[in-house]
């Protein structure tokens, strides 16, 4: 799993895999590979979901000049 993958990217990849399974005649070898990848993604996403804290960064006030 590439470290930099974001939640959105991983989620999208999982959706693509799910879709592949639903629209293709599944080749078992490829299917098993994709299934394993799907499990890996789901695990990663679940871990991310447990990432509970949001952080707040406050910018300094700045006025726009007209």
């Amino acid at each position: 799993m590439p470290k930099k993958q974001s939640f959105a990217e991983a989620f999208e990849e999982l959706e693509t895999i799910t879709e592949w399974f639903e629209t293709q005649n599944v080749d078992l070898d490829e299917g098993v590979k994709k299934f394993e990848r799907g499990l890996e993604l789901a695990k990663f996403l679940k871990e991310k979901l447990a990432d509970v804290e949001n952080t707040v960064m406050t910018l300094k006030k700045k006025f726009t000049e007209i």
Partner: protein
Amino acid sequence: MNTPAIISVSDYLGLVNHALRTIPHEGMVIEGEVVEFKVSQGKWVNFDLKDERAEAKISCFMTVFALNVPVQSGMRVQVTGTSKVFERFGKFTLNVTAITLVGEGALQKAYLALKEQLRSEGMFESSRKRNIPRFPERIGLITSSEAAAYGDFLRILQNRWGGVRVIHAPVTVQGKDAVQEILGAFTQLNALPLENRPEVIVLTRGGGSLEDLHAFNSEAVVRAVFQSAIPVVVGVGHERDESLCDFVADVRASTPSNAAERVVPDRREIDVHLAVSVDRLADRIDDEIQEKSRAIDRAIRAVDAFLERCSRMVSECERVLKSVDPREVLKRGYALVRSRGKILHSSRAVAPGDHVQIQLGDGTLNAQVAFNAVQEALL
């Protein structure tokens, strides 16, 4: 008798204008009703400011640039400015530097006029509304740190989703600085380096009167929402409140809490979704394995049947072959005679003294031909 001083018209007007400049313009606003409102060449604004009680009026002049609220004839306004008699026209004019609307009626009228204008420019078209990312990692938040809206937004955000970086641009949401601060916040957020730039901006505040919501109805803020390169979610007030920013927003939320709901998914729903996805994948793989194993069973059965068929064919051949096996014939008393390895078909093929092999049912004799005789009756 002193001779009166003779001065020119323009010198005299100079004196008048000098005297007019002594009228303080700081700390004083003139309130009246706008009549004969006109804009010329898209730059210059002229109107008369009329007194309610007397038939008194002042000619007012200002630039479109200084006009930051939509003014129409019939509105009550307060203006500040300096007065002057223009030498060229000999006309007393108030040079307006600031104008504000007075009363809910005027504000409401201005609000509707601006709404109509912005609508006619296509700023509220649904076709221009952009999608916000489903799982934003960075959210820009434009609101006041002191407002309940700030706490509500962050609380609901935290309840629903985690790991988000909120980039908060603190602004005052009402009062004279609100517009400038909100504009500044949009500029600031849009100018952040790509890796820090929010993927969506939330502009929010609690509810209030039309006057309280002034900044959210200001043309400049509406245009800033429209022009923001980052999609904008606007959540103002309570359910019943509306502001012009709502109409121009990419996503309109009803309240600050609702803005949080619109901007991130609920982790519980995603959790369920993930579980369902994994189950579906497992089911599909399982189905596939079942199907393949059924196919393998079918193949095995087909091969079995084929082998069975073959074995039957072999047995049949064996039976046929057995029935024609010459050894069986030899066992009944017949013999095969070979000369030089070849089976003899004729007695004439050998001469007396030739060696022949006679194969019987149980063995072979090596023999020598004594004489030839034409075959008579065999038995």
